[in-house]
């Protein structure tokens, strides 16, 4: 594809309850941070994509209510309902269309204002599924059972994901839940829905992220340092859980293969330096790693145990602390992209992965990973020599 880059990122702190901020306040903060980061003003933004969810915002046509804070007045502004990575995908295609040189993409939500379980219960089919009381946690617990059974991954290994990510968050000043945990702490936390304990689940969070995407002509025009978009793909699976093989994630495998191929990556397990994945639940980080080809199938648990995915490991995963340490839905995937941008620019501070050149970010939309969006980013805009 034609070249495009991310030239600015901005994130609010992720918090349990931003009682002082409206949605627009959060968007204002993230957008201005992204503009400062890129060395741009709002006048340099050619078009805007906002990403939000009406139920989490408690307002219909919610995406149009943050246009003011996105600087979208009298500009082409469009909206995506879903994860921020999907908003960013749309923003990228607009920048590549030739009609716009730069796209500002925002994604926000405030879990604190509503009751997430009521919203996720309503995501299930109203004729066949809603009445039996399913919601995001219980559906994902069924998926976790099926994944553990298929791969032999253990509850202890799931707990290690929580220990690692909450520990990583201690270096991230924007994370909501930096914690010193032991495997025992996780296993002794309240069992919500077998096999998922409270500390196997990401928290309810408030937060916003903004990124600025530019085409090649505009990418180097401002003072910010561009990070290049080398491969992007998304893929969806069936809606009904029963129509899928829940113990696997074939749509993620397809999205990842296609994104890595676009980036010219043959063996992602050795060519990727850092990954920010959608760890809404502990088991998901392991399942996604395998589906993306970043680790052999069924082996993520034991690779984690041997330290491969720690900050000093072979492939650091979620060095920022991941979603387990703060999960504003909708913004969640866009934050994964912004974190990879920070890593590739060497600006991740206490959780910087030394000499990170290539990274991958993943976003998820739908129940139990129905659809996935994968972004492969590169520090340099040239083919890396292998070996």
């Amino acid at each position: 594809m034609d070249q495009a880059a991310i030239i600015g990122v901005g994130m609010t702190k992720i918090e349990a309850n931003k009682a002082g901020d409206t949605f627009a306040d959060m968007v204002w903060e993230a957008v201005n941070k992204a503009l400062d980061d890129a060395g741009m003003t709002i006048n340099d933004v050619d078009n805007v994509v906002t990403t939000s969810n009406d139920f989490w915002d408690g307002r219909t046509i919610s995406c149009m209510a943050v246009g003011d804070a996105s600087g979208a007045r009298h500009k082409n502004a469009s909206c995506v309902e879903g994860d921020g990575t999907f908003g960013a995908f749309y923003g990228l295609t607009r920048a590549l269309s030739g009609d716009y040189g730069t796209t500002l993409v925002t994604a926000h939500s405030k879990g604190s204002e509503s009751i997430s379980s009521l919203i996720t219960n309503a995501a299930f089919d109203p004729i066949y599924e809603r009445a039996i009381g399913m919601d995001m946690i219980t559906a994902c617990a069924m998926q976790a059972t099926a994944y553990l059974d298929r791969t032999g991954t253990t509850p202890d290994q799931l707990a290690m994901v929580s220990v690692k990510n909450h520990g990583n968050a201690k270096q991230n000043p924007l994370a909501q839940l930096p914690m010193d945990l032991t495997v025992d702490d996780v296993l002794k936390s309240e069992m919500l829905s077998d096999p998922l304990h409270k500390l196997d689940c990401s928290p309810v969070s408030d937060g916003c992220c903004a990124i600025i995407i530019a085409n090649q002509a505009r990418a180097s025009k401002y003072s910010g340092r561009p990070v290049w978009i080398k491969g992007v793909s998304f893929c969806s699976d069936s809606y009904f859980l029963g129509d899928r093989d829940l113990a696997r994630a074939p749509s993620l495998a397809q999205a990842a293969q296609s994104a890595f191929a676009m980036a010219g990556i043959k063996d992602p397990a050795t060519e990727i330096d850092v990954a920010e994945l959608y760890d809404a639940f502990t088991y998901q980080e392991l399942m996604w790693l395998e589906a993306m080809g970043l680790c052999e199938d069924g082996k993520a648990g034991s690779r984690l145990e041997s330290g491969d995915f720690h900050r000093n490991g072979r492939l650091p995963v979620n060095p920022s602390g991941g979603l387990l340490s703060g999960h504003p839905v909708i913004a969640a995937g866009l934050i994964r992209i912004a974190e990879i941008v920070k890593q590739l620019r060497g600006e991740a501070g206490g959780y910087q992965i030394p000499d990170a050149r290539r990274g991958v970010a993943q976003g998820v939309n739908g129940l139990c990973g129905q659809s996935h969006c994968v972004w492969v980013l590169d520090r340099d805009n040239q083919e890396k020599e292998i070996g």
Partner: protein
Amino acid sequence: MQPTKEDCFIVEGKLALPYQYFAGRTGSRFLIALRDEKKIRGIRCEKCNKVFVPPRSTCERCFSDISQSWVDLEDTGTVTGFTVVRYEEPYQPTKPPYILALIKLDGADTPIAHIIKDIPLTEMKLGLKVKAVFAEKTTSTIMDIDHFRPQEDG
């Protein structure tokens, strides 16, 4: 001076949105069979050789209309996924702890989600053979299947 969080107002609200969900022609035939005959019906895609339940009018695999190829399914099946729900929510059909499961009915290729009763939580396992227990009184909904229980020879 900036107001502190304690000075920030929270305005209580509620999105109450009555809604009528149309079951559609295909879903209605499924619900009528469940209500009047205590039968669980699926739909077969002849081309893909797959039997789907819940029924749907189209096959997403080969993108064809399958709305007329109904098949009767057994009221017995096998558990392919489950969890023990341990927290309470207003939308749950029964008081936790309870078992939520994916059940592949005999004769179907795609499991449906439902609840399982009449088994100690610690004995619940994947592969369990279960049988549908129909509700005594119909509500013309999926809850005409009240729950699934282990098969006696299980």
